[in-house]
């Protein structure tokens, strides 16, 4: 079930989804824009962090710019009976940034576990894939690695005002 947010939370989300103001007192700037106090802005952000509506407040690096140029979407056909235990272990690996179970789309797509891995060169990424393969040994029928060759669009979440 979605968490309850009120109209002020929603306005705060709309005002910050593109980023925090780059001014010395960012919460005051938001407060002025939204007609509430800076204390209220901070309380609401803290509450949304606490409830998980906000994962964290911080910088999102461009992987390519940081030198992680070999970013592969690794996909695995994992035994349904074992995927939840194994998925948690794959997600805990330090080079995995996202790890999900998703539906297969047979016959085109037999894979149900998706893990994004990042390496600064091809050898590093290949070693990461090999490590996941070892971890899934015996529970995985097939796998593939889809490298991104071009970013076509990257804007992130936008909800309407």
């Amino acid at each position, binding site marked *: 079930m979605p968490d309850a947010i009120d109209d002020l939370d929603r306005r705060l989300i709309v005002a910050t989804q593109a980023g925090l103001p780059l001014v010395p007192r960012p919460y005051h700037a938001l407060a002025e824009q939204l007609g509430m106090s800076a204390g209220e802005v901070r309380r609401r952000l803290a509450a949304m962090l606490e409830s998980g509506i906000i994962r964290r407040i911080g910088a999102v690096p461009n992987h390519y710019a940081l030198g992680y*140029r070999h970013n592969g979407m690794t996909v695995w056909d994992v035994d349904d009976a074992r995927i939840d235990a194994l998925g948690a272990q794959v997600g805990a690996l330090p080079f995995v940034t996202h790890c999900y179970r998703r539906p297969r789309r047979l016959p085109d797509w037999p894979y149900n576990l998706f893990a994004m891995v990042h390496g600064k060169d091809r050898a590093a990424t290949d070693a990461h894939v090999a490590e996941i393969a070892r971890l899934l040994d015996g529970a995985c029928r097939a796998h593939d690695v889809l490298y991104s060759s071009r970013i076509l669009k990257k804007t992130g979440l936008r909800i309407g005002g």
Partner: protein
Amino acid sequence: MKPPEARQEAGVAAFDATDRALINALQGGFPLCDAPYRDVGEPLGLSEEEVLVRLQSLLERKVLTRFGPMYQVERIGGAFVLAALKVPAADYEKVAAAVNALPEVAHNYRREHALNMWFVLATETPEGIAAAIDKIEAATGLEVFAFPKEREYFVEMKLHA
């Protein structure tokens, strides 16, 4: 002889050791206090103004894709779905333009596979996903393969700079 910055590989912006330290510091929890940029700068020996100037520049140079709260859209009733298309090579640019034109498309990547275009749909309601898929199928004449997440094992955008 080209100046050093022009010899950077295409698409990868330069950043120095101070930028690196700042990026790593900003991947943690950003403080909810009156002067958060000052507090972030202090342990790094940077003034509030230096933090703001560098952060602005990292965003402009796209070393960072954004800075601010990362919202988990499902928690407020919205939906995120990964989807893919099998795009014939000759139509790739035309289809990319049609897909990118939809505001519901948050990210879009070219990947090397028969399913060669992978994008994330982000909408304010779960029903919005089906509507966006219909629009893409109508605009491109291609079948959309949707991969809604069934379980999230791990999500963390942090990467060491």
